[in-house]
């Protein structure tokens, strides 16, 4: 081959079709927005119809959305929507449910302990580790600023 490695990578970049970014962004916006609107709908429902306190609404809505995300993952529908929606299904809390339920389903065949339970967090694990860590750091900064 007559190319150097960098020349070849530049050439490959030119040859490879790009992801349709504007189409992807638009669909992600619409689907992600729709999921959040459904969440808001549940929020209104729990507050006005069921009559939960604001504190309890904040717990009930995520429980409902995570349940729905897990349910649609189990029904083999969430991944089909995600194929088109991309970040629109990944970012909301339903995407978090999908990231935990899908490896749990996949690796059940390797057993309940070393398969399902151990592999359940392979995708969501890093989100938990860095999410919790960054919340601690932010919390510490907030505490120190208050003390000053």
């Amino acid at each position: 081959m007559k190319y150097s490695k960098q020349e070849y990578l530049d050439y490959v970049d030119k040859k490879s079709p790009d992801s349709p970014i504007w189409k992807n962004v638009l669909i992600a916006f619409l689907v992600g927005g729709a999921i959040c609107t459904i969440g808001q709908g549940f929020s209104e429902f729990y507050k006005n119809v069921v009559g939960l306190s604001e504190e309890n609404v904040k717990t009930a809505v995520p429980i409902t959305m995570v349940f729905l995300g897990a349910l649609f993952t189990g029904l083999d529908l969430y991944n089909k929507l995600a194929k088109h929606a991309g970040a629109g299904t990944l970012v909301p809390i339903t995407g978090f449910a999908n990231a935990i339920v899908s490896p749990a389903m996949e690796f059940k065949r390797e057993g309940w302990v070393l398969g399902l339970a151990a592999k359940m967090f392979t995708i969501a694990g890093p989100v938990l580790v860095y999410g919790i860590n960054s919340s601690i750091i932010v919390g510490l900064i907030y505490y120190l600023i208050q003390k000053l």
Partner: protein
Amino acid sequence: MNKKLGKQTIRFANGINILSYASIAGQKEGEGPLAKYYDKVLEDAEWGEDTWEKTESKMQKSAVSRAVEKAEIDIKDIEYLFAGDLLNQCISSTFGLRDFGVPFLGVYGACSTMAETLGLASSMIDGGFANTAVAVTSSHFCTAERQYRFPLEYGGQRPPTAQWTVTGSGSMVLTRQGNGPYITHFTAGKIIDAGVADANNMGAAMAPAAADTLATHFRDTEKIPQDYDLILTGDLGKVGKSIAIDLLAEEGFDMSENYNDCGCMVFDIDKQDMHAGGSGCGCGAITLCGYIMDMFRAEKIKNLLFVGTGALLSPTSTMQGESIPCVAHAIAISAKGE
């Protein structure tokens, strides 16, 4: 008599006879344009098994059984089985073929396995160590996804350069004598690492290996692309195919007329939404052991150069950010022998 041409090509003086062949294809492949050439199309991903690994083993076992049946010989007449697949420790091959009681030689060449096993089996026969040998390989979308990528139900988006692992298994029974078609040459490829690290663009990673093996084959045998009715790469897909054409043009070989890639043939890429096309050991195997060999039988193809293309990455090497070393092996098949 010298059996070696140039640095990398073996010439089988009398040709190694392809006695029979068989292909087992998955459901999606069965909805593709080559469906009617497969011996069997599965109705679902499981085929009555409780794990996909068992399904893939069963596919390989069944591909061998069918080819042996079609050859009207007994499995005990097979002297060597050359087999490989994509799974860790090649379990589709070892588990699928364990009941046959035939000497087994496992091969790992990633998606180049069909060409590699054919080349090795032919060499064994040409060397006089066997009269009958079988080459077989397989891949399964679901087993490959869970090993290399994400769980099936995970909601991810694939880039346009991504390829779809073919569910399928292909096998061939080779013998010293027969009425053809014949395997006439085997060019073993070098490992080529062009520096591509994106596992979602395997076509671009593998194309330089394919181009290197093809150019070497043409130089070793003093042939040109036009000497073949068809040149066929295993699973470069749309992106890799177009890169291979460019790279060979720079070497002075015109591939614009008679070249295709199994990854572009096995699916209707647009209708089945396959992005850059098919991939996997099964991609080249079911295309070769189905449509292509049927075309030989119909005398529509008389000279073929088949190039299996393999990306030699692992999930560990990908996570460690390594680039993808690739290899390609070429097999020349002719209706008449040399």
